[in-house]
């Protein structure tokens, strides 16, 4: 029994960053890395299943990225994942979520898990595409934005709830193996114990290349992508709006924001 959990090292920017000279990304010196918030929840969901089954389940985390990604994989190992796989070589540079999904699908074909969990999206670029595209490459059933899961390892069906807009949920029955994209709040993620962190340092991280997975050069990078970043820029009127004026005027704007949210 095996559950494959996909994770991503996300990047965040503080204020006052610089754009790379080619204009297509932020200067990497300004990026602050972390494990994607959603991935804490998908790993926890896998760990809960593993623990409920009494240890018969292997939890394997997989990520696509350079060596710095090992730091995030170690966090997952520290929380109890059994193994980690990282795929990278220079040809992966420039991959969009679809090319990443193709790589993960290739890993999944080798690993043959019974279930694959991905985060709904990643906090940096919010594509919300990698998990479902992976399902497509695998030809597996899939469900997006899962907020409740009922699954016993080995069973042919899973029952789950999908979180829709406006406080509505859809209950769905799905054939397994399947790809599920896991939503925040589905569980309470654990913290890694200090002992877990020490043990994680000794656990293996398999580093693979796309070609070792049988992928061609055209499957990854820009060639294997369905989109390409042309330009990144800070919008002239920033996404953030400083509400100015007297408190009465500021609140008049705030009331409007609340009313817009409520659809009044």
């Amino acid at each position: 029994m095996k559950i494959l959990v996909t994770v991503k090292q996300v990047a965040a920017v503080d204020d006052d960053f610089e754009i790379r000279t080619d204009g297509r990304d932020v200067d990497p010196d300004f990026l602050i890395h972390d494990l994607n918030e959603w991935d804490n929840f998908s790993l926890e969901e896998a760990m809960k299943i593993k623990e409920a089954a009494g240890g018969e389940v292997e939890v394997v985390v997989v990520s696509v990225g350079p060596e710095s990604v090992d730091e995030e994989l170690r966090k997952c190992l520290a929380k109890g994942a059994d193994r980690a796989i990282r795929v990278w070589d220079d040809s992966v540079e420039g991959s969009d979520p679809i090319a990443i999904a193709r790589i993960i699908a290739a890993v999944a074909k080798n690993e043959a898990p019974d279930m694959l969990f991905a985060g709904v999206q990643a906090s940096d670029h919010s594509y919300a595409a990698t998990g479902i595209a992976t399902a497509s490459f695998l030809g597996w059933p899939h469900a997006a934005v899962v907020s409740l899961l009922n699954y016993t390892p080995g069973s042919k069906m899973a029952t789950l709830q999908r979180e829709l807009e406006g406080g509505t949920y859809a209950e769905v029955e799905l054939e397994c193996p399947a790809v599920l994209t896991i939503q925040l709040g589905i569980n309470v993620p654990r913290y890694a114990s200090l002992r877990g962190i020490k043990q994680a340092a000794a656990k293996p991280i398999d580093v693979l290349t796309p070609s070792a997975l049988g992928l061609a050069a055209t499957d990854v990078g820009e060639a294997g992508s369905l989109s390409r970043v042309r330009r990144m820029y800070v919008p002239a009127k920033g996404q953030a709006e400083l509400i100015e004026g007297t408190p009465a005027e500021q609140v008049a704007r705030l009331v409007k924001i609340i009313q817009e949210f409520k659809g009044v």
Partner: protein
Amino acid sequence: MSGILVIAEHRMDELRPVSLELIAVAVGVKAQASGPVTVAIIANDPQKYAQALSVQGVDEVICVKSAVVEFDPDAYEATVAALIAAKNPSLVLLPHSVNSLAYAPALAAKTGLGLATDAFKVEFDAGALVATRGGYGQKLNVEVDFPGKSTVVVTFRANVCKPIDAAGSPTVTQMDAPATPARGQHKKYIEAAGGGDVDIPGSEFILSIGRGVGEEDNVEQFRELAQTVGAELGCSRPIADAGWLPKSRQVGQSGKTAANCKLYIAMGISGSVQHMAGMKHVENIVAVNTDPKASIFHIARYGIVGDIFEIGEELRNQFPA
């Protein structure tokens, strides 16, 4: 390849408003796309939506009759693939909704179409489509293009474009959805539990307080304020640690995640890493703080530098009963 295909969305017998917003987006770039705007609705009884979708600028409404009554990602993927094959559009617009997310990436991956998700702008630059979306937690705009792709699927964000009010007279046609083997089954809809219990993860609107409230006696007025504006009251860790509000209201690491939240008003919260872990993903964050350097302003969409008591009292006075 020309023209635009819009996939409308419905749920529980109602057209979702985002459908009409997408039509407006399509009509807006229609001239550049040098082709018709086709709107498709996939349903068991699609005809009933046809009139609402017949707005000015739409050339054709396709009522796709599907055997599947509720949303199913496989059925939608196959149906939209069939529509694309029939219409050869250069742009396929889907709402950036939970249901689109369940099949759009699979559709693009399988058929090799261009794909951009959560776009808030589309345009044609010298005949080639360019979509604009947010990057790095929406701090930057990212322009995405699609070299070599003659058809591009774009999931487009809701509440960006105003719907067109004027009615039109498109051709209304029928089509049968291709049959797909069922791998999943919709069982039922569940509405979020209302009632008196504190529900931070389920709440769409949260008003949260932090250290800025100063003392316990001041908590009352913010509890009252949250009720006045119809928000769930949340708090940062120090407030719950002091015993001023229950743990069930604590947002952040070791607390609750504001998983469903669409509007989060943070009052007197400086924005510790612990707190932000539970809410930084929320699309609309309003930060109110006296300190313009507070970290919370880095992630907020709207910022008010000001005294939370003064702002709170103003809000109480101005909020329509």
